């Protein structure tokens, strides 16, 4: 767990969408799946999960229903709606673009010639 990292702001919703895209889950299940996918290297404020879930539900990205969990308890299950699927695709695309740009910038070791003359 030494290489654990805090969540970058604004990425929780993307992670939720990703987690749910692999199959309907309840709230705790989403948390576990994100941790599992990140190999326990992302630290998520458990309490902040639910506002994000409700926000996504309100915006129509997630559909919900109450049903019974694997150990036979009532739980609220989330699954991706069509709009959610589109949002996931768009957010994924945006994220990888930002990540590419960021790493390109961070790889630079020397000031480019043009910048020095400004």
């Amino acid at each position: 767990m030494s290489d654990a990292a805090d969540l970058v702001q604004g990425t929780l919703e993307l992670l939720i969408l990703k987690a749910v895209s692999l199959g309907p889950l309840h709230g705790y299940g989403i948390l576990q799946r994100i941790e599992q996918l990140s190999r326990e290297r992302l630290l998520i404020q458990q309490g902040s999960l639910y506002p994000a879930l409700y926000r996504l539900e309100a915006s129509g990205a997630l559909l919900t229903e109450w049903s019974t969990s694997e150990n036979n308890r009532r739980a609220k299950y989330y699954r991706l709606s069509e709009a959610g699927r589109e949002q996931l695709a768009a957010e994924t695309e945006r994220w990888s673009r930002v990540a590419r740009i960021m790493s390109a910038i961070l790889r630079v070791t020397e000031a480019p010639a043009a910048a020095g003359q400004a």
Partner: protein
Amino acid sequence: MRLRRRVENGIQDEIRFHLEEHAAKLVAEGVSESEAYRQARVAFGGMETSRDGVRSAVGIRPLDEFFADLRYAARILRNSPGFTAIAAGSLALAIGANTTMFSVANFMLLQRLAVPRATELRMLYHQDQEHSVYHMSWGSWFSGENGLSQSDAFTYPVYQQVRRDLRAAGIELFAFKGLRTVNAAYGGSAQAVQAELVSGNLYGQMETKPLLGRGIQPQDDGAPGSGAVAVLSYGFWQSMFGGSPDVLGKVVRVDTFPVTVVGVNAPGFTGAENVQRSPELFLPMSMIGNLRATLGKEVVLQSNNLGWIQLMLRKPAGMPESVLRDRLNQSFHAAVLATVTPKKGETVPTVVLEDGSRGLAQSARFLRKPIYVLLGLVGCVLLLACANVANLMLARSSNRQREISVRLALGAGRDRIFRQLLVESLLLAAIGGAGGALLGYLGRMGAPALLNTAWDNTAVPVPFSWPVFGFTSAITLITGILFGVAPAWQSTGTDVNTALKQGARSASRRRTAWTGKGLVAFQVAMATLLVAGSALFFRTMMNLAAVHPGFEPAGLLLAELQPPDRQYAGAKSIVLHQQFLERLSAIPGVDGATLAVVPLISNSNWNSGMRVEGDTQANASEDFDPGHSSNFNMISPEFFSVMKIPVIAGRGFTPQDTSTSPYVTVVNQAFVKKFFQGQSPIGKRISDGEHEADGKRIRNWFTVVGVCADTQYSDLRTAPSPIYFTDMFQARDFTPNAQGATYILRSQRSPAELVIAMRNAALAIDPDLPLVNIRTQVQQIADVSRQERMFAALTAGFGLLALALACVGIYGVMAYTVSQRTHEIGIRLALGAERARVRGMVLREATWVAGIGVVVGLAAAIALARVVKSLLYNLNPHVLRNLHHRRACDPVQHGVRQRRREQLAILHQEQVFS
């Protein structure tokens, strides 16, 4: 609310599930059960924060916050009951006054006829140039918007022709005529009621459905004199027939003429004349042949010269207004030319269409301006109350500065606090609004007293309707925002750091003081305007009360008698009056009895064209010069002695002046001045026209036998005008209709006793004689200046209210300002400043503020005086000069309070807090 509960339960369940799952996982990893649950909670973090996040995510947080704000506001207001009572009380008074005024305005000016699609209705008027083909009218004339005179009265033949013509074009014209009081007798009791004659198609065109039976139908409105049927108003059905359903088929005698009741109107239907009050009886137009067959020498149904019938139509959907008007004018023009031949220089009027959704709405035309002026003034009272509460809130918010700063420091958003303060204002406004609605509800009961004649017991209460409720709610909301925003803005703009340090609490003083003083100046201006306005109307009323009518009004009792035409045609009515007068004079305690066709100071006049013998200018043409006319009255010989009008020269009428002796007349001083250039008129002759005898036209000449003193004629405002009097008992030029008259009795006995004796005297002659509108001359005069008294009473009320509110406001702000300067004043005193100087400093500030307010208020009052000039009497704006230096009393209080402030206490406070 349901959504909220569902969401709350959902979160609850979900979080519990989450924690249990997590705990189960930990237990599986070997943690003890109780420890696992604790760890799960720790891992989850702030549960309430999470819930709050969810609430705002689904959008119920604002609602939650709103309720929290409301609870908090209620607590704050409860904690300072004095402030709440003053603020809500002043708002309630202002909102109540506004609600009352608006309900009157709504009732008099805005309410529409209770018929389907009332907005399609149009009233027809004809606009006449100076020399119109029409000279006579039984209807109303007034000056239209473009200055041309405008009338609602059309001749019957023109109506008939235009109606036929328009029917071909698919437009249905319908007609009505409000009759003056008629006598309705049923089952041994007689009542004076209002009747409205309607054309056979009016019920159909108005699309009104009678409650019982049927309406007036086209077949009722047939040949003149036919169609003896009546539809009763709902109110009359209730009062006269106790709401009995077997009223249909009953026979009511209307002015002794039997008519059969065929229907009862729906409760809301008021006919076509106005919205406020329904005539009791609706009769077919054809009945005019029985009830008012002639007017003067004109037979109303045949006359091509006498306009009387009032016309309406429903605008066909989709037809542009201009097309309709052109079509109508084309038809009207043809009809006029087919019925009258214009003399040289005479013009044919044009027809204009006006909104008919309120019916003829005669009174609205004259009440519009006064009511809007009053609405404006009462609106000022509301603004003043708003300023007042804003001021109180400002002063108070400074005390809450610490509380607000603490909340800001703890991380509350400025918008959140702003909203909270606004909710507080709105709650206060709501309390005031509720009180105002209650006051308005009570106030509307008093409103009819201001609008109706004292002796007319048919006053309609102003209804408390939804528009009024909406209006009250709207102004409450606006008020709350108006007075809430400024203090809220101010409070949230505070710099947390400075405000939290008690010693530096003067940090925001400058700005607060500025806003507060601005509000005070505004309040003073408003109060000045209202007080000055009320002074204007009060002076008008006083001036009118001081007008001497030229006779002795105290001890006079008036009663009107309009004998039915059928039994008392022409000369018979004069004989009746003679008999009745004898009986009245014989009543014990009656010092004298007389009659006049036009009662004095009753807003009615009788103007007659006339010429003076030997006046070459007037004799130049055979036609009367229209400019040569005078007020006229027909009286009985005792008139001058009963009224106590001095006869200055010559003699009054005597019993020796009979229908066979030569005509004589008495003129007043103004008449002598205008027509005889001040020279003695005794023995000179005047003429009012010609009469026909034995097929010849003979000029009537009246010899002037006396000059009486000037009196007011139709009202108190107009300077005494020329009047000539003739003796009713000399009359010999009769029309087939009965002559009505107003009886005047002078007696020391109480009116109530006299009325019984008078009714008995009438009964002895004819049990069906309707004696109506019984009132004293004093009541009559008061009624003529009713509007002025109403204005004086209302504006004086507003003015007092405004003054009280302004005083509270000024006190509040000055007290606050002074309290803010406690340190400064304490130091000044410690350093040896004289108390008088300190007091002077405070007073100077207050006087400046008040002075600016007074100047602005007076300027506004002068502007007001110009606007309402037509409502004033004998006043010019200089009256306002009497009003200055009125407000010095207010700031003095604070000066005195200041002086008593103990210097030691102030310095002590300084030590404690710094």
